[in-house]
């Protein structure tokens, strides 16, 4: 009797582990249009209304829990922001004349293609789910293919770049954040135009790395990083140019390397986003 119980227990364990490994291998090997992916999208489609309802119902509890954390950080942030306001005010006064010049030059050079994000037909969406692990930096949003959302479309919020759409069903889409380990965004330093690739530092959602920046180029703390948005005909970037990504916080000077690593703090607070915008069409696109 005891032996039978042991055998049964081991058989169940072996079967479950084998099933998991088969699923993992099959899922990893198949394309995004494969059967398991389709099944997953089906489950997501079924769960999404429940998820959306729960998201709304549980918002007060979420806000209450978030309030404690926010209060702790509020004082520190207030002091930092006061300093920032003072320095930005000085910069803004100087910047106004630069903006006027910039508008005139753009008109002259016919660079109006890269105007505001409204030309990209943004679709607003509410965040209805979030991955709990540091390994998958993903969000689920309540807009899908029925709202014009497609895979690979850029996602932004009021502060800057958030990520891109990686999976879509009729009414829900999955957004992979710029802090996910699969993410890579071609970017440049706004002031100097120095190019690089923004990649995440896994495990720290508040740190991105601007890699492949030549050691010869000088990058300074506080500089803004924006999307480079290549406009070449064959390899057009997924992200439009000029979307703010973050600001430089630290530069690792590695004398022996050709490239330096620039640490960037994203402008968008990726842990607490409630609403995002999906840029559903390229500027001037049909």
């Amino acid at each position, binding site marked *: 009797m005891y032996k039978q119980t042991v055998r049964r227990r081991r058989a169940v364990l072996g079967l479950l582990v084998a099933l*998991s490994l088969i699923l993992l291998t*099959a899922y990893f090997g198949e394309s995004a249009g494969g059967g398991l992916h389709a099944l*997953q999208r089906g489950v997501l489609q079924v769960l999404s209304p429940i998820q959306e309802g729960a998201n709304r119902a*549980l918002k007060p509890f979420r806000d209450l829990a978030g309030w404690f*954390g926010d209060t702790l950080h509020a004082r520190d942030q207030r002091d930092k922001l006061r300093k920032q306001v003072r320095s930005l005010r000085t910069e803004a006064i100087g910047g106004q004349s630069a903006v006027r010049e910039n508008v005139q030059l753009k008109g002259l050079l016919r660079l109006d293609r890269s105007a505001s994000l409204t030309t990209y037909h943004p679709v607003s969406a509410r965040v209805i789910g979030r991955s709990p*692990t540091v*390994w998958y930096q993903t969000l689920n949003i309540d807009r899908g293919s029925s709202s014009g959302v497609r895979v690979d479309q850029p996602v932004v919020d009021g502060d800057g770049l958030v990520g891109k759409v990686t999976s879509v069903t009729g009414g829900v889409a999955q957004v992979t954040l710029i802090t996910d380990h699969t993410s890579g965004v071609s970017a440049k330093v706004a002031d100097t135009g120095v190019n690089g690739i923004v*990649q995440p530092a896994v495990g*720290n959602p508040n740190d991105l790395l601007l890699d492949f920046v030549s050691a010869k180029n000088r990058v300074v703390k506080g500089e803004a990083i924006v999307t480079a948005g290549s406009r070449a005909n064959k390899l057009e970037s997924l992200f439009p140019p000029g979307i703010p990504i973050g600001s430089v916080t630290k530069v690792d000077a590695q004398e022996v390397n050709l490239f330096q690593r620039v640490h960037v703090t994203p402008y968008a607070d990726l*842990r607490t986003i409630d609403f995002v915008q999906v840029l559903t069409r390229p500027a001037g696109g049909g």
Partner: protein
Amino acid sequence: MSDSAQMTLRLAILGLVAVIVQIAAVSQVSIFGVSADLAPLVVMSVGLLAGSIPGALMGFGMGLLVDSALVETLGVSSLIYIAIGYGAGRLRELRDPAHTLTPIAVGAAATAVAGLGFSVIQFLLGVDAPVSWLLVRDILVTVAVNTIIALPVYSVVRRLLMPLLPDDPRRRRRRAYTTGGLSPISRA
């Protein structure tokens, strides 16, 4: 409805509700930069209360649901949660822990196993990104946060499953106390 059918139904509802609450609420509350993870705690509680086979089955089902709801690599969470559910179940079967604080220790261990398990599997699957020490810090903070909520989660799971549990360690301990430490058989 038979007891096993009722148990299956309750476990399925528990798993579904836990995953939805996790995704829609708990994951969106950041504590020191991380959020609590209910899934390993629920699976651990089921293992600790119902044994190794229900624990492993719950782990498999809940892992599948988490991976599907979040469109993540199917099978990764299942593999990790099976180990947690089975391990907690075996602990109950071999050691029969009856101390009130057992779920806290086992909850912390389950969360650590989940955090490390995810890391190992991600590396095996070929994550191509620099890993910072902050990853270790995040795992430790998640363990600390989950340790705090382990007992309430265990209590909720226990309350839900108690009517169907054949042999609950705490009830057994209470019975032993009220009978002067003697089992009903030896008294007779």
